[in-house]
């Protein structure tokens, strides 16, 4: 029997229009694009190899479009099964009730106990768990041992306080030839919360308000840290060209070999391998970001959490993926083997990291790291229009009184938190 022509055409059109995902029972996963794509690719590859009957199809979303894209997906009801998201946005989506509560799935899971505390903190809302770490970035302090030697400094001893950074940076800047002692990005809010924020935390200060009732920018030493940053600029210990840095070339700065000391992330070490082999091969020192006093350190725990949006069709499989990436074998054979930080502290001691103590040091930074917990992180901190960058730019490049700058920053942050 021949089908009428119209029906045949309609059926053919339907088959063409039908998404492949609807035919196969694959899980759809979204992740933001960025420097950790190779890590996430590896996790998905390992999962797909172990689970051929429930593969994950991974789609990358441009980093800057991540939040709007997820919000649009939620509004339209077309959500993926798994969602990797910048961990700082976790509380916003948890508060909105858009993520699956996975607390009960993990109640007897021992791996969670050693998972990165910063990630778990932002994945938790009102004592319920909504995600687990996907990957971790931590900020640490790099120093260039080649420049330290040239400046007559001990290349094996890094700075342990803000005063140390100042004194060492002064000697390195004195070398001339385009060398500068320290690095601060002048036009990048994210770079500053990642590398300058910990200097405030390590000195006992706070930055963002948790909610409308919370006081932002507190701590007796906050003024001193900001004065230190202004002094570093006024004394010319920071390259004036850094004022234009909006984050695009941040990752290339230390590898230029012209920066003595710089707050950066674990990702920078392996970029260095390609960019400046002479520095990578034994001439990079790594320590924690210090505060005003010696012995006080801090770090920013960044990276992504993986969550399950409400409306996912494969919640159980998605939870299995979460457990899979926290398992011992994946922590060592996927994360550590690729020289990415393990997302569980107890897995940091492994055969791959032991071969390079610098990676070990960075992995330890997770223990002293913090992640801001706020429902309005982008507006308060990450936005180029936000009060955080505005405040720092006035500190770095103006002569406005520091007290006034802090007061203005507080007022702006409070107004945003109160909305």
């Amino acid at each position: 029997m021949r089908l009428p022509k119209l029906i045949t055409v309609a059926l053919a059109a339907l088959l063409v229009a039908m998404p492949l995902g609807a035919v196969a029972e694959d899980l759809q996963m979204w992740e933001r694009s960025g420097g950790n794509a190779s890590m996430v690719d590896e996790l998905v590859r390992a999962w797909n190899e172990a689970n051929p009957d429930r593969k994950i199809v991974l789609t990358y979303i441009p980093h800057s479009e991540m939040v709007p894209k997820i919000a649009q997906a939620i509004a339209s009801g077309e959500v993926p099964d798994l969602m990797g998201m910048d961990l700082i946005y976790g509380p916003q989506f948890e508060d909105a009730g858009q993520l699956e509560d996975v607390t009960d799935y993990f109640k007897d899971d021992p791996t969670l106990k050693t998972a990165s505390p910063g990630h778990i903190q932002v994945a938790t809302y009102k004592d319920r768990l909504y995600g687990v770490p996907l990957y971790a970035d931590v900020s640490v302090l790099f120093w260039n041992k080649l420049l330290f030697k040239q400046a007559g400094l001990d290349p094996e001893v890094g700075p342990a306080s803000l005063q140390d950074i100042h004194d060492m940076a002064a000697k390195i800047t004195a070398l001339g030839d385009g060398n500068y002692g320290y690095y601060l990005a002048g036009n990048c809010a994210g770079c500053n919360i990642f590398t300058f924020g910990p200097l405030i935390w390590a000195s006992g200060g706070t930055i963002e308000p948790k909610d409308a009732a919370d006081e932002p920018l507190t701590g007796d030493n906050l003024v001193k840290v900001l004065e230190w940053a202004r002094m570093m600029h006024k004394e010319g210990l920071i390259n004036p060209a850094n004022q234009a840095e909006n984050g695009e070339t941040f990752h290339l700065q230390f590898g230029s070999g012209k920066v003595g000391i710089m707050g950066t992330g674990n990702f920078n070490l392996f970029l260095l391998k390609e960019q400046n082999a002479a520095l990578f091969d034994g001439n990079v020192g790594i320590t924690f970001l210090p505060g005003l006093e010696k012995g006080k350190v801090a770090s920013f725990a960044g990276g992504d959490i993986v969550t399950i949006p409400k409306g996912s069709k494969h919640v159980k499989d998605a939870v299995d993926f979460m457990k899979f990436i926290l398992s011992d074998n994946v922590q060592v054979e996927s994360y550590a083997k690729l020289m990415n930080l393990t997302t569980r502290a107890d897995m940091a001691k492994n055969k791959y990291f032991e071969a390079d103590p610098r990676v070990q040091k960075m992995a330890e930074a997770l223990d002293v790291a913090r992640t801001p917990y706020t429902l309005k992180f982008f507006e308060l901190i990450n936005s180029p229009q936000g009060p955080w960058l505005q405040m720092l730019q006035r500190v770095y490049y103006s002569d406005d009184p520091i007290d006034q700058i802090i007061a203005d920053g507080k007022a702006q942050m409070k107004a945003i938190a109160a909305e």
Partner: protein
Amino acid sequence: MYNNARGRFLGLLYVAPALLFVLLFTAYPFGQMIWVSFNSWSLITPPKFVGTANYTKAFADKQFWTSLQFTLKYTVLITPILMIGGYALALLVAANTPLRRFARAVIFIPVVIGLGASSLLWYWLFSTDYGLINKLLFDLGLLHKPVFWLGVNADISNWAIIVSVIWKVIGFGMLLFVAAIQGIPSEVTEAALVDGASPWQRMTRITLPLTLRTVLLVTLVSVIGSLLAFDQFYIMTAGQPQNLTATSVFYVYLNSFPYLKLGYGAALSLILAGIILLFTLLQLVLSRRSHA
């Protein structure tokens, strides 16, 4: 033919596809936007009716007016350059000789590149550390210390972006002007030549008056395009320094998507649309007067 009911129905049937398109893709979204502007809506939570609160907030929002002021400044600076430059280029390349046709094509090529791509290109050209512009000026001995073209000084940033946009869009105006100049009847120009009119007289008494409609059209397009400027500022300065180069549309985008304040963004958009409508009406009135 359309006086009877059947004729009117037939007429309606003919315009129905276009009408449907406009209703579906213009009127309905516009109505939705008006509705959204009276709500507080983050996309991830249900909308909440807030009346005119978003409008009240917009009128008190200092940054919105700073952005609007900057957008107007950008428009006032770039429009005459695009008009005069485009017209001058058109006068130079209007004749159909092989070399001039080639010149027209070269000037027009950037128009077909996306604004995002061209902004990225210029972003790297203006880069303080890696950009070819600073390198060139250094090599020529015109600079002794690097210039921070983007994101440090609002005026320098604005001019740097204006240069990039002129490179990108001047060919569009030029092409329209060339078409208008070529549309002038040759008898008119020949008569002026016979009467001994100088090139300046021919330009001011014949070419310019006979191409005035195109001049007004290009002005309108340029003004609207500049008031809606977004890509180039988003990519090249992200509003820096201190939000002094944040255009109105950039501010609308920021509120609507990264901040997830869709209702407030919609209110800002509607205020901006009203302002652009005023400019457009003003130009249309001027256009009609000059034509009369």
